[in-house]
């Protein structure tokens, strides 16, 4: 044969089990990212702009004298930096997020394309109204969807997030109470409520009175009714509630609340369970915020932006904040001036500049049009079905305090099944990270000990759910069998091990500072 000396081994050979630290600190495709301040250099920039000189004549004597102190990076360095950072993040595009109360459903890419159409993305909020009729029409269509799905006659579109929507609803209630010439300063909030509820109530100038939950996870309706009185302005209920259960007594509660002259605020965070099947308006609510970033798929973006439009009943519609959107034969009108208000409108004020989160409106409407009313209903059914499937598949090996009956779109477990194992809810959650899952919502709601709230959403395939269930079963069984190694010191395989939150709180370091210069030699 003609000799070929290009041979190289093509089998893997034996693998050594040791974990060897690398020289760079990187580990294969797991790449570390320094801070932009450590990468940047003077005189480098990632944009090419002309170097124009300007004199001080029109700067009012306030020209900047000192440098800002920003680092300079070229475009390749910037892209590499942020790509590396992105790879240190879990995301719904990569895996299931079983976060109860957050509704981490799929974020359709069509929504992103639609939001970027220049007619939406490059539209100035104060352009003449004739130049923005398409945008106003879109908002009007979204309003129609929100009002129709909820069975409510009005909706305030400007709140920028769910908590902002809660504030909007409570300020409308406050205005309505004042318009009646009454003084009502108390708001009833279940002890299982999300922290934004009492925080918002206090923010809006009310005192918070907590209503206990019954052992079965439902709000104590009798206790609630007993607390009603002439000084109660409103109740704030989440329905389905934060234990994942539908409050079956809601209609009687609403009647009692109204009979006492108070208003019913509903936290709409869990709307994904009932959209297309139940209209909150039929239950007697007066105001409900809808988290577009939950039920209507706008992306979480690592923490925001959100949007929290608030549907309003006849009793509260008059108090919706500015701006108002009206439609007539001449087109769509944005009412920003109190002198132009339609008859009966008494807005309590303005929640923010301009008109609301238009970028999120486009995405939400794109979602709604894509699903249609049948898709919205099917999505809710699949969300509830998936949560119940998880509950049924895990309640024998984990502990579900309200597991005797069906749940809604989320299933609640507590840490009873971990009793005596030395493994806490926190340890359990950190072990899930090693298994490639973002942990479920932990330690919320506060009404059960060591809560684990699981909301799969309708975006998971059955295979995905089965894999998730198998992992949780495995973890639960190991914990109960006393095998603690997996849990102690978890996570091991994430970009970081557990972080020292005590040090971060005791000595907060909230910004980069240059290292002090070494002392000059004498």
């Amino acid at each position, binding site marked *: 044969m003609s000799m070929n000396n290009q041979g190289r081994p093509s089998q893997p050979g034996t693998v050594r089990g040791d974990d060897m630290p690398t020289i760079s600190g990187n580990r294969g495709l797991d790449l570390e990212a320094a*801070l932009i301040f450590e990468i*940047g250099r003077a005189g480098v*920039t*990632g*944009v090419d702009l002309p170097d*124009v000189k*300007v004199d001080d004549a029109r700067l009012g004597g*306030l020209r*900047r004298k000192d440098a*800002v*102190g*920003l680092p300079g990076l070229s475009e390749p360095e910037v892209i590499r930096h942020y790509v590396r950072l*992105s790879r*240190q*993040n*879990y*995301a*719904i*595009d990569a895996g299931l997020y079983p976060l109860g109360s957050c509704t981490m459903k799929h974020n359709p890419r069509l929504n*992103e394309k*639609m939001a970027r159409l220049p007619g*939406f993305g490059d539209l100035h909020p104060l*352009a003449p109204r004739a*130049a923005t009729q398409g945008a106003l029409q*879109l908002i009007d269509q979204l309003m129609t969807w929100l009002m*129709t799905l909820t069975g409510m006659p009005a909706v305030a579109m400007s709140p*920028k997030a769910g*908590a902002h929507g809660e504030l909007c609803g409570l*300020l409308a209630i406050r205005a309505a109470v004042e318009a009646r010439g009454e003084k009502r300063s108390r708001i009833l909030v279940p002890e299982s409520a*999300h*922290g934004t509820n009492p925080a*918002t109530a206090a923010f809006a100038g009310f005192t*918070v009175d907590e209503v206990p939950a019954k052992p079965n996870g439902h709000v104590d309706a009798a206790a609630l009714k007993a607390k009603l009185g002439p000084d109660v302005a409103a109740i704030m209920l989440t329905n389905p509630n934060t234990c994942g259960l*539908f409050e079956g007594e809601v209609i009687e509660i609403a009647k009692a609340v109204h009979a006492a002259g108070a208003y019913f605020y509903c936290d709409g965070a869990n709307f994904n369970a009932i959209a297309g*099947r*139940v209209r909150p308006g*039929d239950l007697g609510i007066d105001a409900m915020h809808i988290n577009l970033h939950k039920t209507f798929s706008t992306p*979480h*973006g*690592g*923490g*925001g*932006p959100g949007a929290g439009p608030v549907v309003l009943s006849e009793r509260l519609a008059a108090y919706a904040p500015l701006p108002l959107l009206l439609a007539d034969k001449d087109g769509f009108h944005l009412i920003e001036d109190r002198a132009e208000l339609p008859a009966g409108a008494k807005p309590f004020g303005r929640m*923010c*500049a301009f008109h609301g989160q238009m970028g999120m409106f486009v995405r939400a*409407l794109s979602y709604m049009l*894509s699903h249609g*009313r*049948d*898709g919205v209903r099917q999505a809710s059914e699949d969300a509830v079905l998936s949560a119940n499937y998880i509950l049924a598949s895990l309640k024998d090996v984990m502990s579900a305090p309200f597991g005797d009956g069906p749940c809604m779109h989320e299933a609640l477990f507590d840490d009873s099944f971990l009793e005596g194992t030395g493994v806490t809810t926190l340890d359990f959650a950190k072990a899930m990270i090693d298994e490639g899952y973002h942990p479920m919502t932990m330690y919320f709601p506060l009404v059960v000990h060591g809560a684990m709230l699981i909301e799969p959403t*309708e975006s998971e395939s*059955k295979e995905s759910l089965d894999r998730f269930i198998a992992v949780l079963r495995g973890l639960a069984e190991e914990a109960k069998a006393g095998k603690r190694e997996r849990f102690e010191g978890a996570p091991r395989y*994430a*970009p970081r*091990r557990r*972080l020292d*939150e005590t040090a*971060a709180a005791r000595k907060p370091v*909230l*910004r980069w500072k240059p290292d002090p210069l070494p002392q000059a030699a004498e």
Partner: protein
Amino acid sequence: MRYLPLTPDDRRAMLAKIGAPDIDALFRDVPREAVVPLSVFDLPETQGELEVERALSKLASRNVAAGSMPSFCGAGAYKHHVPSAVDHLIQRSEFLTAYTPYQPEIAQGTLQVLFEFQSQVALLTGMEAANASLYDGSTATAEAVLMAQRLTRRGKAILSGGLHPHYAETVETVAGLSGLVARAPVTPGKAEDIAGLIDSETACVVVQSPDVFGLIRNLRPIAEAAHAKGALLIAVVTEAVSLGLLESPGAQGADIVACEGQSIGNGLNFGGPYVGLFAAREKFLRQMPGRLCGETVDASGKRGFVLTLSTREQHIRREKATSNICTNSGLCALAFTIHLSLLGEEGLARLARLNHARACALANRLAHVPGVELLTPSFFNEFTLKLPKPAAPVVDALAQKGVLAGVPASRLMPHEAAARDLLIVAATETNTDDDFAALEAALTEALK
């Protein structure tokens, strides 16, 4: 339905595992009278991507995009050129579809971005500490007023007449509950004597610079007057790029800075989502609203980042929280920080100088239009013209002729007589000389 992975077989198998006969059985806690059939909803059914694109594109085409004709609108939202890299990066799955970084081990991407963002905001504003963003500049201003009320234990907030009216209305709506909100007179093109209004009941003075008319305000004397009476100065900035050329609010003595960050990294988007920058003195840290990201180490000694000082926030403090805010403006803050990383020191300085130069060039040209008077002697990239007649109809007429001439002040203050004839004009690096010529010609014609 393309977004729903479950098949009818899957559903049957899952119901069997649950032991329920049908999906309705799972909703048994819902009162029967509350369950409605699909036909109740007067809404369309499922549509494919093609149909949805068609419908939404039609709506989009009925709007006049700022880039489609010469456009000079500002007044709190500014058109700048965002480098292509920004939009690519923010659409990476791991940024776009990530949750709030409550599990720091698998969110170091988001957290390090926030740390860098906080650092940049602190540097730009000249302040010691910045948070991980609020919803926008207007709500940031309201939060600043509430924070000042808590810190000083006083209720009165004095708002400059140059504060964007939407911002003032937002502050009144929210901060009016815990104290008195007083508005100083509107004096277009001049600074009002706000120092004279400060007394021992004043929690804070809120001054925007450049103001809504574009005028650059000197904050130093106002800071001194406020501090002399035990009050705080809140500086508001609606055009973040101005911080590349003007002295920072921190350097001038501001105690809290509320800034709209939209100009950097984020498009106009018809008013939202935007991003509120919030910074304050270190000693006020525990009264600061919003999320904070801090540096720490992990169990193996590696540097890492976590959300910290959470005890200020709603999920722990509940009714005693510093604010009820739950989200920040995550992705918009990411866009801001990426754009600013691309700009760097030199790029931001050049961008700011370029903006000022464009505005000066435009102001010089328009000064030649008969009947037009330049009202603002100092400005960054936005100035105010006094026309010989009401500005709003002129703007509408010019829009029909293919020029978005700016924002008539009466749009923001419909009952301020002094505003009726005023036109607020912004010029950025995106406006060409042809744009200027078009505006000059159209304005000359309209004012004949």
